[in-house]
């Protein structure tokens, strides 16, 4: 892409002035020293305990995730086995007719209401449900 340069000439005084103001230090000695300083700081980081920690972070995260997954699967299987056992127990128990299980309660309820309506107590034999029915 062609760019329109407002300072078209490289000899432009402003560009030259800018280059002079922003000139990087000349001489290899400076750059060698800067490199040495950078590498000294890098060496400090390399020897730091946090690098070792950082190295272990990923495996630790993977291990934790694997453990969580394994625990989740184990819990799921245990729950499944529990519900299977419950179903099996229910199926294995002798069946009870529904009427046998419910009627006494209903009868009992009806007797209580009748006793209440006739103002009878349990102690009076004439007020029993059987007597009323007769």
């Amino acid at each position, binding site marked *: 892409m062609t*760019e329109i340069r*407002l*300072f078209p000439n490289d000899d432009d*005084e*402003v*560009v*030259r*002035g*800018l*280059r*002079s*103001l*922003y*000139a*990087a*230090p000349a001489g290899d000695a400076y*750059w060698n020293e*800067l*490199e040495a*300083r*950078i*590498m000294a*700081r*890098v*060496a400090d*980081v*390399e020897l730091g305990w946090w690098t070792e920690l950082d190295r272990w972070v990923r495996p630790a995260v993977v291990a934790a995730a694997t453990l969580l997954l394994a625990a989740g699967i184990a819990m799921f299987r245990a729950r499944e086995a529990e519900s299977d056992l419950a179903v099996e127990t229910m199926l294995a128990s002798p069946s009870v007719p529904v009427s046998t299980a419910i009627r006494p309660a209903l009868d009992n309820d009806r007797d209580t209401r009748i006793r209440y309506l006739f103002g009878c107590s349990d102690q009076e034999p004439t007020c029993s449900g059987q007597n009323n029915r007769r």
Partner: protein
Amino acid sequence: MTSFADGKPDERALVVAAQRGDSEAFAQLVRLHQRRAYAVCRAIVLTHEDAEDAVQEAFLHAFKALDRFLPDQPFGAWLYRIMANASLDLVRRRKVRDADELPETIPMAFRDPGESDELRRRLNEALTKLTARQRSVIVLHDVEGFTHGEIGEMLGIPEGTARSDLHHARAALRRMLKDVRSDL
């Protein structure tokens, strides 16, 4: 050991070696890029000393983040983005710290005695009138030769914004230095 073709360091091989923990390979990457890296930082910060600090911080950051870098990408672009971020961070920190004592002029670290004093003085003064971003864009483009796209990527702004910043910066400098330039 890192192999070299024609005596020229293979940047990708150096990056891969550095990622494996070869500190000599990282030192070679520093050697390859430190001048350009300094230029990027110097365009953003106000002083040579700050540029030095930013370069060191950024190389350190790059070293720590090296394992996340994909070697097939251009290393330079990645590194200069880190340089620009470190410089912008430094500028932000300085702005907070020196809020009450903003410098009147940009310090001149390397002075060429042959240069016109008047132009330098006026240019220095004019640069302080630009915004920090405009100043960075004009230096990165006109002095360092980065493209609008590269500058946008480095400074985290759209390419069009870099282009418009450059246009405004040049117009402002031309306006402020018009009389000086005609005197030269």
